[in-house]
């Protein structure tokens, strides 16, 4: 991205100046100069497109890990006011609705676990269905799917997958309200019959990690983290059901926008007023998909525990937190000193409530919400805590963010060689797709350290711990 076209407001905050007659909301980009320079110009174009949508409140924003997406940029955040004609956009949520990360903390140390990492890797690989075309052993019928879409992770716990203590540490306690299963097509539900408890493909993973460094002792204490501790992170979403909802409503909302005379700079920004019938229909279906994703990660949590207990009999894995990064949620935020109910789109961006927020579990309320910046297989991940004074509608980065295309990555790396190279570094990869490993090569991502640092400098979230990968089951 050419920084000449931007105006720097702060060391980690930039804006795109408006032409005199340009009627759009402000565009704000969070990140350091080197991170922004590494982004494709399309990021700026997409963020500017979002600023033209009706009812944008404040600014169209990008997080430090932003990269070129479809519709919104990945790492895009925008809030809309229903009362001012604000819209809901499929392109602001993405197809993998409620993709997110479940992070589990264990009572295992590196010393306990390291001698058995190979065995653990194999056991997890067999227990967790991952990759394209893989289905799980769990089969659900359409009636059960309707229940899942209403009950979210609560359904999973009720059916023996995990425990009620998990629910306390999932956003919205594992179940979002206002889900409407009737707004979800039969094809979407049929796609999900064999996909509950599956990881998926692409950038999805299950990773065994070690806490290598603590940055914030007080927050780490609240989160139950200490150096040398083993954690497991599970990255996945609403699977085929969410993908089907996304693709179907993309066309429904594109046609609604055209009918209602909403000018779309990019058709992928397909949207409808929040209060319109199509907007309400999509919101009901999207909430159902969020519940599906929460149930899916809850089932995967259970499968992970069962697998780990085969290797480490006394191991305990507690849910540290479960946070989604492809959503639109109705939240109250203070704007110009007044609380307003807004629909906050986060596409590849994590919610990051600061200290004192009433939605946080009591245990974390003093320090802020756990935020996970997932890295790539070979680098590392960060756990952060939501900051006070976050000006991005309580949002933060969600990952390292891609630095090059999949095609470029395929040309540069070979899956088998990468797996061997990572093994030399003490990182065990298990996968059914060597192509997937090459596309997801650590070098294809931005430097996660720079992203986490910029996230902190920008006041979006504070670094709490750095996690080093040890075992990765790659989707």
């Amino acid at each position, binding site marked *: 991205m050419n920084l000449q076209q931007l105006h720097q407001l702060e060391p980690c905050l930039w804006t795109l100046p408006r032409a005199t007659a340009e009627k759009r909301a402000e565009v704000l980009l969070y990140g350091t100069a080197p991170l922004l320079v590494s982004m494709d110009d399309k990021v700026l174009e997409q963020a500017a497109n979002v600023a033209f949508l009706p009812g944008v409140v404040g600014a169209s924003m990008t997080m430090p890990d932003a990269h070129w997406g479809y519709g919104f940029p990945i790492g895009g955040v925008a809030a809309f006011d229903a009362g001012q004609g604000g819209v809901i956009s499929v392109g602001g949520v993405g197809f*993998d609705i409620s993709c997110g990360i479940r992070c589990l903390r264990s009572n295992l140390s590196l010393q306990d676990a390291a001698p058995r990492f190979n065995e653990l890797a194999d056991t997890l690989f067999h227990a967790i269905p991952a990759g394209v075309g893989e289905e799980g052993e769990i089969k659900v019928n359409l009636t059960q799917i309707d229940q899942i879409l209403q009950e979210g992770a609560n359904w999973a716990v009720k059916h023996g997958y995990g425990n009620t203590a998990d629910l306390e540490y999932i956003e919205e306690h594992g179940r979002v309200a206002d889900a409407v299963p009737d707004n979800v097509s039969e094809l979407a539900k049929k796609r999900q019959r064999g996909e509950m408890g599956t990881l998926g493909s692409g950038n999805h993973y299950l990773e065994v990690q070690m806490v290598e460094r603590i940055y914030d002792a007080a927050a780490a204490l609240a989160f139950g983290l200490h150096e040398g501790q083993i954690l497991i992170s599970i990255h996945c979403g609403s699977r085929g059901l969410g993908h089907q909802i996304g693709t179907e409503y993309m066309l429904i909302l594109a046609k609604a926008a055209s009918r209602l005379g909403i000018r779309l700079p990019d058709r992928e920004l397909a949207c409808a007023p929040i209060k319109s019938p199509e907007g309400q229909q999509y919101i009901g279906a999207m909430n159902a998909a969020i519940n599906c994703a929460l149930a899916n990660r809850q089932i995967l949590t259970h499968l992970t525990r069962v697998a780990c207990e085969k290797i480490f009999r006394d191991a305990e894995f507690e849910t540290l937190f479960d946070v989604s990064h492809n959503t639109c949620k109705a939240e109250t935020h203070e704007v110009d000193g007044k609380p307003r109910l807004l629909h906050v789109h986060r596409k590849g961006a994590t919610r990051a409530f600061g200290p004192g927020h009433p939605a946080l579990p009591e245990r974390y309320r003093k320090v802020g919400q756990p935020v996970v910046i997932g890295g790539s297989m070979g680098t590392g991940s960060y756990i952060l805590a939501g900051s006070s004074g976050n000006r991005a509608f309580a949002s933060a980065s969600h990952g390292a963010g891609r630095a090059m*295309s999949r*095609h470029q990555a395929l040309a540069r790396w070979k899956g088998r060689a990468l797996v061997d190279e990572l093994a030399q570094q003490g990182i065990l990869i298990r996968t059914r797709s060597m192509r997937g490993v090459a596309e997801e090569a650590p070098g294809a991502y931005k430097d996660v350290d720079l992203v986490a640092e910029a996230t902190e400098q920008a006041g979006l979230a504070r670094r709490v711990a750095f996690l080093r990968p040890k075992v990765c089951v790659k989707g």
Partner: protein
Amino acid sequence: MPTQSPTYFEHDADIGIIGRGATVEQAFEAAAQAVFGIVTKLDAVQPKTAVTIAFEEADVELAMVTWLNLLLGKSRELGMVFSRFRMQRNGARWNAEALGEKWRAGLERGVEVKGATLTMLSVKQTGAMWEARCIVDV
């Protein structure tokens, strides 16, 4: 059948697919091959089972994403992977057949395609050749 091999174009996070052919139907068939070429190696897929796809869409660009997303939905619903496609258009009515087989051990696992998007979507005729392209989410 498509007259040219499917090709791809660059996108940071996802993949751009291109299908070309002498007719719009052939371009759509080639685009479908480009999509399933991401999922697996097509040469190894046996076209044992045919699945019918039919829909109505007057807008040719929206027809392209509808076609690809119906294929992806059906493949996941049935646990199949497709490698060959036949399509016919009659005005706004599109009738097609996708041939493939159920996933089995010998098939290479590529990358799952979540859906075809409206981003960089275009369907156009240049000279004697039709070209259909869009970004697919992976």
